[in-house]
């Protein structure tokens, strides 16, 4: 570790992994509720468990991004973090606010939570992924601003690199676009139109900038390839991301009361959205092939390559599968969407956070790479989680194809609940795949504690 202040990211990474475990636990509950409808009812109804599952995901990814920024920004800017104290303070504020919100979901009926937190004053609750009480949303803004100030001051007063400038652009976009979560008009079409400015422009816009810059940073470190080459790739990838992704928002404007021309614009531009992800895959493998050094952290290299491949499959291929308007007419809001959502979030954002943790954690412990045995355990966890996520996606896709056929496509469409009963076998298999994912995650956590076969097995810095 070059700068002492980089160590604050350890806190962020620990919180991220802890919340990740909670997220998967609730994922398993949800999966079971799909087949045993009254499981935990009425104590934890499906909607509550789902809120916990998706909100934990968002919060732990944000912890991961912030941890990544605190780690890589000082090293890139070649100076200590502007204020490590602020970073630690914001960590605790974010963690406590997040924990209170999740407890609120679990312990108070949602309508009661809305009343308690004064949703009447500025109603923003009850919209997918933005279920947080308004006061929590304000807290998120405060934390984001403090974080941006800290990281921004570090970057702007230090060495400016393409990686940090792209990261800063992505993080600023993240904070600015989140402000649309406070706009909640009664007009449902307007509400939905701008809701996507948070959701789509995050995950298919500015988050990809953050993903790209973290990946570029790790690739420079583990391959030793010339920075000039990597930065050129980064520019091209994020250029394609924004060129396709911004108008690509149109694939959400097909059936929500917006004009018909979005069917053309959304189809064409989102059909191009796989391009930046494909380039990312070519980029990662090319850099590893041209490597000038053999970094001892094989696990980090595996995560980096895995991110590129799985992001392309999940976001690129599974996104393309249902993005053309004539296809989406039948698949919109079915298990196809769920399939795509799972692999895209895992492939792009979960894996990039695990990549930077894999690379940075041993260094923060004073080693260049973890000991061999710990790396083997970590790579097992990589394969278990990744392969089981592929199966979760395949089973949900099977469920979605059948659902689309039975409920939407045939001449004698069946009611929703009848179709759900018919596709239950797919849900059971998804749940089994989910259990394997959990085993992978437990192994992942264990890999941090795994001792080498002999003392001093780890590669010293």
């Amino acid at each position, binding site marked *: 570790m070059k700068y002492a202040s980089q160590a604050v990211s350890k806190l962020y990474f620990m919180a991220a992994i802890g919340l990740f475990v909670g997220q998967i636990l609730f994922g398993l509950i949800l999966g079971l509720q799909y087949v045993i409808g009254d499981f935990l009812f009425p104590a934890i109804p499906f909607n509550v468990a789902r809120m916990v599952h998706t909100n934990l995901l968002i919060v732990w990814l944000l912890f991961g991004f912030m941890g990544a920024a605190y780690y890589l920004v000082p090293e890139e800017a070649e100076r200590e973090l502007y204020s490590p104290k602020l970073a630690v303070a914001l960590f605790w504020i974010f963690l406590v606010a997040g924990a209170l919100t999740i407890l609120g979901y679990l312990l108070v009926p949602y309508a009661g939570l809305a009343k308690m937190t004064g949703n009447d004053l500025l109603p923003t609750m009850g919209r997918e992924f933005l279920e947080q009480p308004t006061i929590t949303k304000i807290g998120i803004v405060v934390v984001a601003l403090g974080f941006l100030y800290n990281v921004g001051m570090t970057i702007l007063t230090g060495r400016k690199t393409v990686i940090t400038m792209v990261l800063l652009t992505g993080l600023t976009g993240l904070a600015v676009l989140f402000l649309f979560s406070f706009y909640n008009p009664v007009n*449902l079409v307007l509400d939905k139109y701008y809701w996507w400015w948070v959701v789509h422009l995050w995950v298919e816009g500015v988050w990809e900038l953050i993903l790209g810059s973290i990946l570029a940073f790790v690739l420079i470190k583990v391959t030793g390839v010339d920075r000039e080459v990597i930065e050129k790739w980064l520019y091209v990838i994020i250029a394609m991301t924004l060129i396709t992704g911004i108008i690509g928002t149109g694939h959400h404007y097909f059936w929500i009361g917006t004009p018909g021309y979005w069917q053309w614009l959304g189809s064409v531009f989102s059909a191009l959205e796989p391009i930046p992800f494909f380039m990312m895959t070519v980029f990662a493998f090319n850099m590893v092939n041209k490597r000038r050094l053999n970094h001892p952290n094989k696990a980090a290299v595996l995560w980096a390559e895995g991110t590129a491949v799985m992001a392309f499959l999940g976001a690129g291929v599974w996104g393309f599968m249902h993005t053309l308007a004539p296809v989406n007419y039948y698949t919109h809001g079915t298990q196809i969407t769920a399939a795509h959502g799972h692999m895209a979030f895992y492939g792009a954002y979960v894996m990039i956070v695990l990549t930077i943790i894999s690379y940075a954690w041993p260094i923060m412990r004073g080693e260049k790479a973890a000991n061999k045995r710990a790396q083997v355990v970590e790579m097992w966890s990589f394969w278990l989680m990744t392969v089981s996520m592929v199966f979760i996606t395949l089973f949900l896709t099977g469920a979605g194809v059948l659902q689309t056929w039975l409920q939407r496509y045939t001449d004698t469409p069946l009611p929703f609940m009848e179709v759900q009963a018919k596709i239950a076998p797919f849900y059971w298999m998804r749940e089994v795949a989910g259990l394997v994912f959990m085993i992978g995650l437990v192994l992942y956590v264990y890999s941090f504690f795994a001792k080498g076969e002999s003392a001093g097995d780890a590669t010293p810095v």
Partner: protein
Amino acid sequence: MSEVFTKSMARNIYYGGSVFFILLFLALTFDTMGTLPEQDNRAAITPQVALGKKVWEENNCIGCHTLLGEGAYFAPELGNVYKRFGNSTEAIKAFIKSRPVNGVPGRRSMPQFNLTEEELEAIAQFLKYSSEIDTQDWPPNIQG
């Protein structure tokens, strides 16, 4: 990538492309905002519909259902439930009211939300309003 394609060219594509498409997106948004009044059924928004949307949000209905195809996939689409229930707000109210507190053994069941008569009427009116938004003929059939 070869030496012909330089980093500054890549940077220019990034900046130029982003700015161009952000502006195009804003222009399209401006145009959409102009055409929405003909499609989004805003004339039907009454104080009762507004209350209905609030009831919808404060009971996290989107946590199980989809509305115009967006939301969770655990329970039926509600954008067209008014039509599916025979153009009847009474049927919607009766369904919500009749949910058993402890659920149905082994099956999915909607929670009992204990809504007041005013809230029930409001949510039913909100769903009626939603069903009359011009959604380009989506969903494909009445099953949602």
